[in-house]
């Protein structure tokens, strides 16, 4: 199947190095300490952060750091076919673990010992790149909750189909069976916190594909920074500053 036509356009009309449209909203869930909604094209996720708060299970308490917990759930209607089990399946457990480890690396947990921070991510619409959208939403939600972090964490995916590196795969491109590289970075510190790939790639092409994903992450970081600045301006305005 042709994923990049001879004119160089993909199935949804994008160029190979073009990301899908980003849209973010801070404060999507009013009852949470921090929350955000993040859209990458048709993929739509909501993240809510509760914490820092008292540890619920005493046995899990850590004396010198905050405990970070994360749960990833997909809504029944998020994919084309109705999924019967929204949570508890292996893919959800794996992604929960991945998001937790990624965020744990950047939160300054030593500032909040003996406490717990819960990150809940809910996928409303899944069209490829849910992992990345969840990490971006979680970053915004943590910023909204005022939790101290080393840097923003942004994530983007890329692949390699029809001998072309493609940025930000959607569901159709993802299920093509080609390689799918997901990268998460700390943009200011210029460090990689998450790197996952499935299928196989020759080493030199892998460098290109990963570089492309990293560029995508930086673009997401710029967007997220803008959204946060807008949000802060609004808060200032409301306070009458």
């Amino acid at each position, binding site marked *: 199947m042709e994923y990049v036509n001879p004119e160089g356009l993909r199935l949804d009309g994008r160029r190979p190095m073009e990301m899908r449209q980003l849209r973010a909203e801070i404060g*999507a*869930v*009013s*009852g*949470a*300490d921090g*929350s955000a909604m993040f859209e990458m094209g*048709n993929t739509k996720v*909501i*993240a*809510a952060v*509760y914490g820092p*708060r008292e540890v*619920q299970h005493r046995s899990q308490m850590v004396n010198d750091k905050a405990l970070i*917990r994360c*749960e990833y*759930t997909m*809504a*029944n*209607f998020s*994919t*084309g076919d*109705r999924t019967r089990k*929204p*949570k*508890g399946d292996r893919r959800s457990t794996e992604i929960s673990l991945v998001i937790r480890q990624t965020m744990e690396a950047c939160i300054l947990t030593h500032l909040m010992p003996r406490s717990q921070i*819960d990150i*809940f*991510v*809910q996928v*409303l*619409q899944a069209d490829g790149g849910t992992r990345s959208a969840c990490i971006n939403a979680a970053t915004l939600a943590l910023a909204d909750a005022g939790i101290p972090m080393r840097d923003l964490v942004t994530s983007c995916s890329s692949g390699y189909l029809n001998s072309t590196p493609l940025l930000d795969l959607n569901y159709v491109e993802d299920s093509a069976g080609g390689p799918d590289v997901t990268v998460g970075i700390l943009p200011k510190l210029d460090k990689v916190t998450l790197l996952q790939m499935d299928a196989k790639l020759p080493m030199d092409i892998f460098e290109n594909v990963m570089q492309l994903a990293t560029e995508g992450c930086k673009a997401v970081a710029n967007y997220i920074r803008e959204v946060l600045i807008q949000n802060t301006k609004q808060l200032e305005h409301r306070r009458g500053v």
Partner: protein
Amino acid sequence: MFLVDVSILYFCNVSAIGYYVGMVGLSVGEKHFIQGGIAQDLRTDGRKRLTYRPIFVETGVIAQANGSARVKMGRTEVIVSVKAELGRPSSSAPDKGKVSIYIDCSPTAAPQFEGRGGEELSMELSAALRQCLLGGKSGAGAGINLSSLSIVDGKICWDLYIDGLVISMDGNILDALGAAIKAALSNTGIPKVNVASAAPSDEQPEVDVSDEEFLQFDTTAVPVIITLTKIGRHYIVDATSEEESQMSSAVSVSINRQGLICGLTKRGGTGLDPSVILDMISVAKHVSEQLMNKLDSEIAAAEAMEEES
């Protein structure tokens, strides 16, 4: 006394932002304030006892569903999606389609919904909604006309899957879900089906599902749900989670446009005198007209916005 009440009012408003009342709990002063306010027909947020919070409806939020809606009542937010798939009717009702309602409480709404914590509430909500909308075992009295979902008697029918997701919780989830289901169903388009004629009686007929033509679902008989929460000696409508924590009992009444009761649930441990229940039902009937009209106008506005965009 008055000065103390004002300061608690300020505290309540500030603590509502960023605090989850269920976790923190209410002080004795706050509880007295809520109960006293309700007795004087002036609730914490300034509403009267029978006033709803501002309702915000958005339709067509889930692109791959046949119909969907997002309803916000104050800070309670729910999303409902309706998907139609071809299926086989059950042998006991060959001329009717099937509808299944399933509600899920997302952990984003409250930390205790993590893992399997939200299962109990989800099952309770799903059961209450099924009871209100789907009628009895024979299908009589259903808010949704199941016969309209049949394609070929005994062989092919539409299976409607109504999935609800609670994203944010601040009391009165059942009413919000009822409103969202009504909005999602009015947004639902069932594809037109052409049945190949002359099929042998024991084989599955060929059907051609149209991608272009859609039939709008008829929602005039779909009821709304009004929950009346009894606090002290008075009933309020559209309780917030603070107010719900003070309730002695609650009655949820499902009423359709004709003013007929489609379902009734009582929650809470305190016993109620039968005359009180009858009074609550008549209050609910009175409130339901306003809610229906408000909901219909919001849904029409949402559909108009969706068509524009």
